[in-house]
């Protein structure tokens, strides 16, 4: 780990001023940043500790029925907040499908949004990586790339964004509140993460000094609570990143889909929401034919970036499964294996 200065500001404006300096980085729980620093991937000259800034650790219900989640709320606390989990069950399921109990107890809401890709070439200093060293090339293109992007990638970078939490949040029109040198502004979460293009070193729309202070969900997001799932395919059933994942949410009226939300994870450098698929579902009966049509639309622009053509068909089938599970109703409680398509198959359980 490189040497760095450590600053613990008392207020948000102090934090923004301290973090606007070149080479500075915010430190929240550090569950991703310290790991990257140990590997030499991140080398900040200054850490600005935001864990004790006032006003960042609350879940607030707004008068209009929306909710404002402070950036320092821990992942586990949000997932286990009874009112939040009842209103936005797919978000709770996504949170609980990610990482481990220890990491969820530490990791923050803001940090989850800003975690870096788990591309092995990004993490390996001996590999060429345009995200880590702009212009150095991309060893993933000719390397082990079966888990890499199938949507929105470029010749410069085929990495995916690893967050589960962000996937249902994008589906629900989450908005990010940012404090920066120019004051407070808001960015839709769907526009926070960037596709790589020819500048993959820039993950997000944030500028130096920008601090995420909260994430907001609009009042209408709770209307999907009865039919909302986050389904995540992994190479092992727990404590693994998504190969592909899907947040699927339906609002049913009289046996017909009045409104649908569909966002994919693990397929691109950002959560991948598809308006065409959502529109095609609206007005349809919640049956396999409608779900298959939505899956075709959602993956219509997909193309393999390497040995990962299987992810495209896998994602199509996952969309059908996630929509079918959402249509059958949100479970009363987050399943024992959150996000797992196997949770609903009791014969696969192997009790002690």
């Amino acid at each position, binding site marked *: 780990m490189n*040497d760095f200065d450590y600053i613990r500001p008392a207020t948000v404006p102090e934090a923004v001023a301290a973090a606007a300096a070149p080479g500075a980085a915010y430190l929240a729980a*550090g569950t991703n940043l310290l*790991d990257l620093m140990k590997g030499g991937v991140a080398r900040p000259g200054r*850490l600005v500790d935001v864990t004790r800034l006032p006003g960042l650790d609350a879940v607030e219900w707004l008068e209009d029925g929306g909710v404002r989640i402070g950036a320092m709320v821990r992942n586990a606390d949000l997932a286990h907040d009874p009112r939040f*989990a009842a209103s936005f069950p797919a978000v709770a399921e996504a949170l609980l499908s990610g990482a481990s*109990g*220890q990491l969820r*107890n530490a990791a923050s809401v803001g940090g989850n949004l800003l975690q870096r890709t788990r591309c092995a070439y990004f993490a390996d200093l001996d590999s060429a990586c345009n995200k880590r060293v702009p212009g150095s090339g991309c060893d993933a293109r000719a390397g082990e790339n079966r888990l890499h992007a199938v949507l929105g990638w470029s010749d410069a970078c085929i990495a995916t964004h690893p967050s589960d939490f962000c996937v249902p949040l994008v589906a629900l029109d989450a908005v990010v509140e940012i404090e920066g040198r120019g004051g407070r502004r808001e960015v839709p979460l769907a526009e926070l993460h960037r596709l790589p293009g020819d500048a993959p070193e820039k993950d997000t729309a944030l500028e130096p000094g920008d601090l995420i202070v909260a994430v907001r969900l609009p009042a209408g997001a709770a209307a999907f609570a009865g039919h909302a799932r986050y389904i995540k395919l992994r190479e092992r059933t727990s404590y693994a990143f998504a190969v592909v994942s899907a947040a699927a949410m339906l609002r049913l009226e009289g046996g017909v889909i009045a409104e649908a939300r569909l966002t994919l994870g693990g397929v691109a450098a950002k959560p991948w929401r598809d308006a065409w698929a959502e529109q095609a579902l609206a007005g349809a009966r919640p049956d396999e034919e409608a779900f298959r049509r939505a899956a075709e639309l959602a993956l219509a622009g997909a193309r393999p970036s390497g040995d990962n053509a299987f992810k495209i068909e896998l994602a199509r089938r996952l969309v059908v499964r996630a929509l079918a599970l959402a249509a059958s109703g949100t479970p009363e409680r987050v399943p*024992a294996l959150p996000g797992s398509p196997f949770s609903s198959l009791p014969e696969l359980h192997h009790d*002690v």
Partner: protein
Amino acid sequence: MTFSISLTVNGVRRDVELDNPRVTLLDLLRERLQLTGTKKGCDRGQCGACTVLVDGRRINSCLALALSHDGADIRTIEGVAEGGHLHPVQEAFIAHDALQCGFCTPGQIMSAIGLIQEGQTDGDPERVREGMSGNLCRCSAYAGITEAVLDAQKKLAEAGGTDAGRRDAA
């Protein structure tokens, strides 16, 4: 530049001077306070051997900057037995043969104590396995670990030592 921090570790206040901010909570416990029961396995948040309770919650101490936890209440494996009696989770690990080499065991036990306090498993082995997935055991004593956690949870609930009734509504 030196940094002064104060922690409560296993009920005892410890004041520590750090001449460098890079020290993790894990390294502070092991190298500065000689509490080597907490193990350094991967040092990258993947194995769970370094699990400790911070303000009652289990976390990976290898991914926690010590300075950031100034003032925190830390509980390690050295501080779970009371008055010469093993903690019920420690007893259950012995009773259920939940270890072989023992390297991961302090982290497993601290994680199990944290998991039981979180009150989300309801005695369901699937939920216990899921809740313990952040702790790897390369001897693969998982079956015994799951039995031990379930047994300890039951005994603690009977003794009234947990809030076993708390769990998610959703």
